[in-house]
């Protein structure tokens, strides 16, 4: 059964790739069916995965002690359910969204391939299998970001995403070498069983190397710059890969390697801090965006910061829960935004939207519910998970991280409602000409795109209810086999209770909302919206519009020097110095040849003199030295 779950999407991808030209529009149905079947197959394993140690299938082994297998335990199960479940819904949505595209079968082939790669990542029972999945999802992401490869911006974004992801792959690879060399195995169970034998520096090295992988894949500071650009891909891709699943692989990995983090408090500090910084940095950048997808991209970065912050400090259940709820509400936000973009024939700039609430009420409700959930409004899913993460910081004794978390929650409310007010309220500012995604004439009924969004709404509202009841909640009991005995360090006793903490967060959220309302939602602000927005766009500090100049920094520190060295080597060192030395050698041979050539003057008698002189030398030598006996 595990095989079926794992290989169905691969089969779908291969069939779609080979038969693509014949299938054309029907490709979407095939692709969705492969992922959907995989989802239902996963449901049959629900009970078996929940028991310790889960479902396990050996795959075979390489030389040198690499043994491979598949494994499904509660943690993998949650990811698989999201990948195939939310993934399946996004596939269905894409049938409508991508209708009319020239290469729709290729699109679904890539999507199915992505699902397969992601399943490889989460189902592997060892680090190398994980690494393979890790690389393959990067590849799928590259293909899908660059799906419209005639557009130079998409091509550049795809390359950037892939290269930064390879940085992460390399970090993770190094971690694999470290762990394998010191424990002799790549299987999770073996490695974790021997964690206590590892010297602290080795453990810290491994943790840092793993986290480099996580940071690149999950867009953590300072390796986050590819994520906003990644939205050059079609919107369903953004929803599936760059919001719901792939970018959360880092969260999965940290949670999966919980035993490593539990043994190294330094690594915990590092990961928790970076998560919090990313959450805040992403949220602040979200304020300055005009592209609806970029707002969502920075919010994704910020929310993953929360997750990493949660699993980093040891609040694994909270972090994973935030992944779970985020998958719903963020996918829904992207898909709802996609409805708007689709209806506006590719327009993505919120300054050119306005008043959409009346024109497309369904998209509006989708956005609104998603926004309420992401802001952490009570009774929506995001409330339960985000509060759990933030409160977890306090439990673990990181008051500063707690403050950052609360501040981020407030900013989140501000930029999400800013976007909502600008795009969906006020006067209609839509224009006729567009520069965004290619528009397609569609003959697919509207419900194909609306039903997936409607189903996601259920999750967006209700996914958090699983966590009601604290340590005895369904969620905690389900994940218990994975995080049994491993829990928060609980070094600092919390000064405030759970409820008080929630109230504090809520106050921050209300403040954020209030500010957004005053600046963008109040009737006074709505009346002269275009002028206000223009002024805001002009006065926006460059540090925000350029993403803190991190891109420029990376460019100046790594890309430029590498190119300069390559130029120096290829254009100067190679042809001039090294090859010059070789040419000098051959030139020297020529000079020697020219000199000796003078001796060959063609006069027989001159040659004879030379011979006689030579003989004379021999004779003289033996005359003086005597003949050896």
């Amino acid at each position, binding site marked *: 059964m595990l095989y079926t779950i794992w290989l169905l999407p691969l089969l779908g991808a291969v069939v779609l790739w080979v038969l693509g030209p014949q299938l054309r529009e029907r490709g979407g149905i095939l692709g969705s069916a492969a992922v959907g079947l995989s989802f239902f197959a996963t449901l049959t394993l629900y009970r078996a995965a929940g028991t310790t140690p889960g479902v396990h299938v050996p795959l075979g082994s390489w030389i040198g002690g690499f043994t491979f297998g598949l494994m499904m335990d509660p943690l993998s199960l949650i990811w698989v359910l999201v990948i195939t479940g939310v993934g399946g819904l996004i596939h269905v949505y894409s049938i409508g969204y991508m209708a009319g595209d020239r290469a729709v079968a290729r699109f679904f082939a890539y999507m199915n391939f992505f699902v397969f790669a992601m399943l490889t990542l989460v189902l592997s029972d060892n680090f190398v299998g994980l690494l393979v999945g890790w690389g393959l999802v990067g590849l799928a992401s590259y293909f899908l970001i660059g799906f419209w490869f005639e557009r130079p911006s998409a091509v550049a974004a795809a390359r950037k995403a892939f290269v930064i992801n390879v940085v992460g792959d390399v970090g993770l690879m190094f971690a694999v070498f470290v762990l394998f060399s010191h424990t002799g195995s790549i299987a999770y169970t073996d490695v974790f069983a021997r964690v206590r034998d590892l010297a602290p520096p080795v453990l810290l090295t491994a943790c840092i190397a793993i986290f480099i992988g996580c940071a690149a894949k999950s867009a953590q500071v300072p390796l986050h710059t590819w994520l906003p650009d990644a939205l050059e891909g079609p919107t369903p891709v953004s929803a599936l890969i760059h919001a719901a699943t792939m970018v959360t692989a880092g969260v999965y990995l940290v949670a999966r390697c919980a035993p490593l983090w539990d043994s190294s408090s330094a690594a915990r500090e590092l990961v928790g801090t970076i998560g919090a910084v990313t959450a805040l940095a992403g949220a602040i950048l979200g304020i300055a965006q005009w592209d609806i997808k970029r707002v969502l991209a920075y919010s994704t970065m910020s929310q993953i910061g929360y997750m990493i912050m949660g699993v980093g400090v040891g609040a694994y259940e909270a972090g994973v829960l935030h992944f779970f709820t985020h998958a719903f509400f963020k996918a829904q936000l992207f898909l709802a935004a996609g409805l708007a973009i689709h209806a506006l024939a590719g327009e993505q700039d919120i300054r050119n939207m306005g008043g959409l609430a009346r024109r497309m009420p369904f998209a509006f409700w989708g956005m609104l519910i998603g926004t309420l959930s992401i802001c952490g409004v009570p009774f929506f899913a995001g409330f339960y998970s985000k509060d759990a993460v933030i409160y977890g910081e306090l439990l673990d004794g990181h008051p500063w991280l707690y403050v950052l978390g609360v501040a981020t929650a407030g900013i989140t409310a501000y930029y999400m409602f800013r976007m909502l007010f600008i795009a969906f309220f006020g006067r209609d500012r839509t224009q006729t000409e567009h520069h965004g995604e290619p528009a397609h004439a569609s003959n697919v009924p509207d419900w194909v795109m609306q039903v997936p969004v409607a189903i996601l709404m259920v999750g967006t509202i209700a996914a958090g209810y699983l966590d009601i009841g604290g340590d005895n909640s369904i969620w905690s009991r389900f994940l218990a086999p994975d995080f049994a005995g491993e829990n928060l360090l609980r070094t600092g006793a919390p000064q405030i209770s759970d409820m008080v903490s929630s109230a504090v967060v809520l106050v921050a959220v209300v403040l954020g909302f209030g500010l957004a309302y005053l600046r963008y939602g109040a009737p006074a602000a709505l009346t002269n919206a275009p002028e206000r927005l223009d002024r805001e766009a002009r006065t926006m500090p460059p540090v925000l519009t350029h993403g803190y100049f991190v891109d420029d920094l990376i460019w100046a520190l790594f890309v430029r020097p590498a190119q300069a060295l390559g130029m120096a080597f290829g254009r100067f060192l190679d042809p001039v110095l090294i090859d010059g030395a070789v040419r000098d050698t051959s030139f020297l041979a020529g000079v020697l040849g020219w000199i*000796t*050539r*003078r*001796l*060959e*003057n*063609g*006069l*027989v*008698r001159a040659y*004879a*003199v030379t011979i*006689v002189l030579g003989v004379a030398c021999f004779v003289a030598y033996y005359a003086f030295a005597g003949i050896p006996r």
Partner: protein
Amino acid sequence: MTPVASVALVNYIGLSALIFLIGVAGVLTRRNPLIMLMAIELMWNAANLAMLAFARAWLNNAGQVFAFLVITVAAAEAAIALAIVLITFRRTKNVDVDEIASLSG
């Protein structure tokens, strides 16, 4: 082993050296290829004489055998060399070796 020669070995060698030097002088000073060939023949024979003398002196027939070999090779060499001289003369109408320098580097 006692040499059985009635004439001292050194006389043979001295004569051989003298003939050889005459040959060398001939090759170096004359420009007519025919004369040069004759001088070369002199050198061959000087060497032959030395070999025969040593063979006689040391009672070792290898020297005599080699002298025969030298005579045959010398004959062949003379034949080939004369042929070359003839062809060269036909082509260049010239028998001065200093004028024939087409192999100059």
